[in-house]
């Protein structure tokens, strides 16, 4: 294998230049226009066997296409003494005298110039950032030479695991830090060094920069526990209500941290970031979903729809009305809500979600002005997911704060390691009676994986509302689980995770869409 061309290719370039390559590349590989594609579709067959094969090669000397599999291009090269051909799939050049592909800088540059013209590039209509392999810059090459140590990450490596010292009741922060540092797409963002600081001169005050440093700490390979005092300090100065050494709520900390991160990112689309609909900062790209609220007037059936951005989904626990209005007939043999109305307690994440998205009758005390009848009417309200976030964070409301009492609900709520959100989408909503298909188990599992999620972190709270402790389960690689208890990290099983008393559940999308 030669990385520096070969004498045959050099001789060819000296005699005919690079134009033959450029022409074949532009007409049969880059194919910028619809016309070019039509020509390609018609003409890309082996001239010997007439098959449109996968590895078709074009002779660089004459107009001949031959397939590689049945060696028709080899035969042509031999009989005509035309020893150079281009692979029409990848644009690489093969030399039949050297019996291998040869790599040539000039030709590679030509190929790159085609793929870099965005207007000509078909793929960019579909993907913002078509995949290209990493090529180190001069600076990066210098850095690599200066730091010769390499770390190989394989399925068994535990790089990324690091305990966090408890700074006095700061387990509420530690568990959120663990969940965030193990959010796959956030990790990719930070390890790829994608944050450009928007607080020049005071990057020490930037929480995003601090997160970047934290990722460096976590993935440095050092195993001793890390002391996150800088992070704590930054969150305290930016979210004053969390300051102080008392036990805080992990959910509140998560939302505060996301908010500070989002503010320090300041977006890059030039839009005001007070409107999260438009913010394209990394936090909003990952965590923002769209919650649709449909209010139907009972008098005229007029529906008014609003969509609000959300970073998490807070779900009620404890007794309440059943997931569906009483007049809906339960399907025979359905999973059934045997609990009598008003005394129904969800015991699984799915039931919580069903209750969350049920049509709710707003009684006579909560009349809403209808836009069509122009007067106050009773109405029905229903919430659904209009847009799913990349990372879905579910908050099981285990802490009840009412006037006079504070209570913790310790009911076991089961949750799956794979979750399909299709039934809770606005598109699954039937205009008149809520969901057309009310029993989720009866729904055909959607063929595509578009709305499917995988569990990757669970925050737990043990103890009472007064004295408690937060821990966190996180997933490493595809299926290895670890329990993070401040500075201690121990191996865990998925069964342990699924049997735990979850408080915050983190899921990530299985498949990412590209706009």
């Amino acid at each position, binding site marked *: *294998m030669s990385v520096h061309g070969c004498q045959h290719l050099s001789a060819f370039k000296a005699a005919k230049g690079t134009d033959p390559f450029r022409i074949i590349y532009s007409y049969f590989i880059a*194919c910028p226009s*619809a016309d070019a*594609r*039509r020509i*390609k*579709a*018609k003409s*890309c*067959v082996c001239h010997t066997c007439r098959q*449109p094969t996968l590895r078709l090669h074009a002779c660089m000397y004459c107009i001949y296409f031959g397939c590689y599999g049945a060696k028709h291009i080899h035969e042509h090269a031999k009989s005509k003494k035309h020893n150079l051909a281009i692979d029409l799939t990848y644009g690489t050049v*093969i030399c039949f005298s050297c*019996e*291998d*592909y040869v790599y040539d800088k000039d030709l590679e540059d030509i190929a790159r110039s085609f793929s870099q013209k965005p207007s000509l590039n*078909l*793929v960019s209509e*579909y*993907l913002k950032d*078509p*995949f290209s392999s990493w090529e180190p810059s001069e600076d990066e090459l210098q850095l690599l030479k200066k730091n010769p140590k390499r770390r190989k990450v394989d399925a068994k490596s535990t790089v990324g695991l690091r305990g966090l010292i408890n700074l006095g009741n700061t387990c509420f922060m530690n568990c959120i830090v663990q969940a965030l540092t193990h959010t796959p797409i956030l990790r990719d963002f930070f390890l790829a060094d994608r944050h450009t600081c928007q607080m020049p001169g005071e990057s020490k005050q930037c929480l995003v920069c601090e997160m970047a440093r934290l990722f460096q700490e976590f993935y440095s390979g050092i195993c001793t526990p890390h002391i996150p005092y800088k992070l704590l300090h930054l969150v305290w100065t930016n979210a004053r209500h969390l300051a102080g050494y008392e036990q805080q709520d992990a959910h509140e900390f998560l939302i505060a941290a996301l908010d500070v991160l989002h503010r320090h990112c300041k977006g890059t689309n030039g839009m005001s970031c007070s409107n999260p609909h438009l913010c394209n900062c990394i936090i909003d790209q990952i965590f923002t979903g769209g919650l649709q609220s449909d209010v139907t007037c009972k008098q005229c059936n007029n529906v008014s729809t609003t969509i609000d951005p959300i970073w998490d989904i807070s779900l009620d626990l404890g007794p309440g009305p059943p997931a569906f209005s009483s007049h809906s007939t339960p399907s025979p043999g359905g999973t059934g809500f045997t609990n009598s109305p008003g005394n129904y307690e969800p015991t699984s994440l799915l039931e919580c979600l069903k209750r969350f998205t049920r049509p709710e009758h707003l009684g006579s005390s909560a009349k809403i002005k209808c836009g069509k009848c122009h007067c106050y009417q009773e109405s029905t309200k229903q919430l659904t997911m209009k847009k799913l976030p990349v990372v879905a964070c579910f908050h099981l409301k285990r802490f009840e704060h009412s006037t006079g009492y504070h209570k913790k609900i310790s009911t076991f709520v089961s949750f799956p390691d794979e979750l399909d959100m299709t039934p809770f989408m606005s598109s699954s909503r039937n205009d008149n009676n809520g969901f057309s298909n009310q029993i989720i188990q009866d729904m055909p599992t959607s*063929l*595509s*994986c578009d709305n499917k999620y995988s569990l990757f972190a669970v925050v737990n709270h043990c103890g009472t509302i007064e004295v408690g402790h937060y821990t966190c389960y996180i997933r490493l690689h595809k299926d290895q689980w670890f329990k993070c208890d401040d500075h201690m990290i121990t191996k865990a099983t998925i069964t342990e995770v699924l049997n735990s008393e979850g408080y915050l559940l983190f899921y990530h999308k*299985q*498949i*990412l869409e*590209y706009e």
Partner: protein
Amino acid sequence: MADLQERKIKDAQMRATINQKLVETGERERLKELLRTRLVECGWRDQLKAHCKDIVQQKGLEHVTVDDLVAEITPKGRALVPDNVKKELLQRIRTFLSQQSNI
């Protein structure tokens, strides 16, 4: 026998037509890019790359041809493609074909 022969010819014609459609519309490139992205996301690319590196290091750069590499990694590469990636691609191709009126 004649039936079988006829079917083979028909299948080949169908394959050629589908291929032509995929190329003409640019769908083939989009599918390729989608597949590439999925294989990068799931770690397939890194796995195969590491495997290729091992082979090259074992035999020495001068003694390996692309054909050798292809022959050695193809079975492994095929086996390692996750099922859900195959399913997604198949689904996309189906959708594409159902939108083509004249096939």
